[in-house]
């Protein structure tokens, strides 16, 4: 597989340099080792600061979602590798507008350890912190072990809803409550057709046959539920909808926002083919479809594949999802 790069060890630094050069109205690089991106017009005085972060390779996640109504800062590690404790602490400092800092990120061991340690450092500087973890990937653990599930595209909803809540100048406890409610409202499942290449490794993350797919694969190539012959778009969409609704059913008339997401290489055309089925199925289930999202929102480098997320809304979360927000990748 081919990649466009210079030195694989400079991949992330060169990517961040380009990202901030292209969109200076949204992003600025801060921190000792230039691995923290902060809001260009931040920190916002009196607003709860929202921080996220993790490994590179998932744009627009994480850095992309910095902007008004969204995140205030992110710490970015190498591709699929955690940022360091110091980088996370720098991101928290950059986000702090005096009302405390909420970290919203995916449930991955290395990230949890480093964010927890950074929060301990911030405590020492008298900055209040709180944490909300995304655990939306239904394929990563059974419902009985839901606390072990990994975070995937559901992060987009948590960022958006937490960002809107922070914009109302709600305090740290209230923004945390709403972000947690958004995280709890999301269910996702992914399917991969081809692997991706981590620049520093130089080889595909896994092997898969030309005629095969894997249902339930994680966004770093973590093993899924089954691997078998590639199915049709409608079969894939139906299985994904079944898996999400089995895990969290829709109540009649309840608002649901669906996200049909490309893992990188899958084109929008194929996402829309899938969306027809998703929309029909949600309507059959009695859901009211709110703000459907179709596109590249949370990726795994050049992986071919899709993920489907349902965010189960209510009268409190729906307006926050639809409140104005802007970043280089998304505008609401």
């Amino acid at each position, binding site marked *: 597989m081919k990649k466009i790069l210079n030195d694989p060890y400079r991949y992330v630094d060169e990517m961040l340099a380009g990202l901030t050069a292209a969109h200076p109205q949204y992003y600025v690089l801060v921190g000792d080792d230039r691995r923290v991106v902060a809001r260009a017009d931040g920190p916002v005085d009196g607003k709860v600061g929202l921080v996220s972060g993790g490994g590179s390779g998932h744009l627009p996640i994480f850095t992309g979602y910095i902007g008004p109504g969204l995140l205030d800062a992110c710490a970015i590690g190498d591709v699929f590798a955690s940022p*360091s404790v*110091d980088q996370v602490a720098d991101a928290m400092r950059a986000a702090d507008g005096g009302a405390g800092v909420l970290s919203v990120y995916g449930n991955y061991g290395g990230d949890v*350890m480093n964010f927890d*340690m950074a929060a*301990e*450092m911030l*405590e*020492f500087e008298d900055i209040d912190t709180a944490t909300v973890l995304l655990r939306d990937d239904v394929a990563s653990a059974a419902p009985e072990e839901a606390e072990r599930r990994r975070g995937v595209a559901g992060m987009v909803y948590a960022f958006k809803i937490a960002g809107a809540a922070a914009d109302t100048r709600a305090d740290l406890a209230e923004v945390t409550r709403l972000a947690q409610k958004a995280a709890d409202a999301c269910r996702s499942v992914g399917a991969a057709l081809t692997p991706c290449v981590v620049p520093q490794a130089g080889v595909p993350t896994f092997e898969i046959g030309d005629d095969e797919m894997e249902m339930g694969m994680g966004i770093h190539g973590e093993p899924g539920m089954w691997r078998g012959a590639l199915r049709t778009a409608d079969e894939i969409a139906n299985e994904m909808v079944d898996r999400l609704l089995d895990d969290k059913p829709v109540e009649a008339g309840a608002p649901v926002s669906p996200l049909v997401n490309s893992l990188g290489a899958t084109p929008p055309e194929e996402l829309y083919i899938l969306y027809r089925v998703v929309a029909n199925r949600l309507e059959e289930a009695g859901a009211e479809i709110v703000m459907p999202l179709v596109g590249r929102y949370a990726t795994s480098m050049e992986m071919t594949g899709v993920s489907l997320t349902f965010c189960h809304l209510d009268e409190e979360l729906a307006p926050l999802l639809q409140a104005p927000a802007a970043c280089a990748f998304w505008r609401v």
Partner: protein
Amino acid sequence: MTTQLTAETLSRAIGRLAPHLESVAAELNQADARIGDGDLGITMTKGARELRAVAGELPDDLGAALMTCARAFTKGGGSSYGTLLATGLMTAAKACRGKSTVDWTAVSGLLDAAVVAMADRGGASLGDKTVLDTIDATARALVDLDDPAAMTEAALAATEDTLDRFRDRPNRVGRARMFAEKSIGLHDPGMLAFREILCGLR
């Protein structure tokens, strides 16, 4: 003369500790390579360099000084042993926050609290043949001691004893777990690094 633990004590201890850790880096790398990834000496050298860099400017508040030391082991990141040491130091930092002196007799309790926090963060338990077993034995050995030189000797004796007790047991956590059988008869590298920290404090 009665002395107490202060930022000044820490600063002078770093002056002895850092060169010692650098001098045993190759040995620690070798011990680690037998059952791990062979970078423990590098981790300790990096930590020692960072400690040297901050030793001259430690804040008077003992908590803040310990937090500065903790950060020496998180900079550059990546190593789980460095993260664990930083966790233990941060726990002590929180307990000492706002104090410029702490009685030597409090050190045993600080080590106990560090063991709890490190076990929680690293997912290991006492008895798993990790650095936790040596720190716990040291905490036991230091109860009621208040002379720093005698404390270092007691800590070393307890650590040597723990190394010997565990040598013929298998490692139960971390990367070494995958070589559990191979680890029988070998000292745990993390325990060895803790012994070298104590030697460096002499």
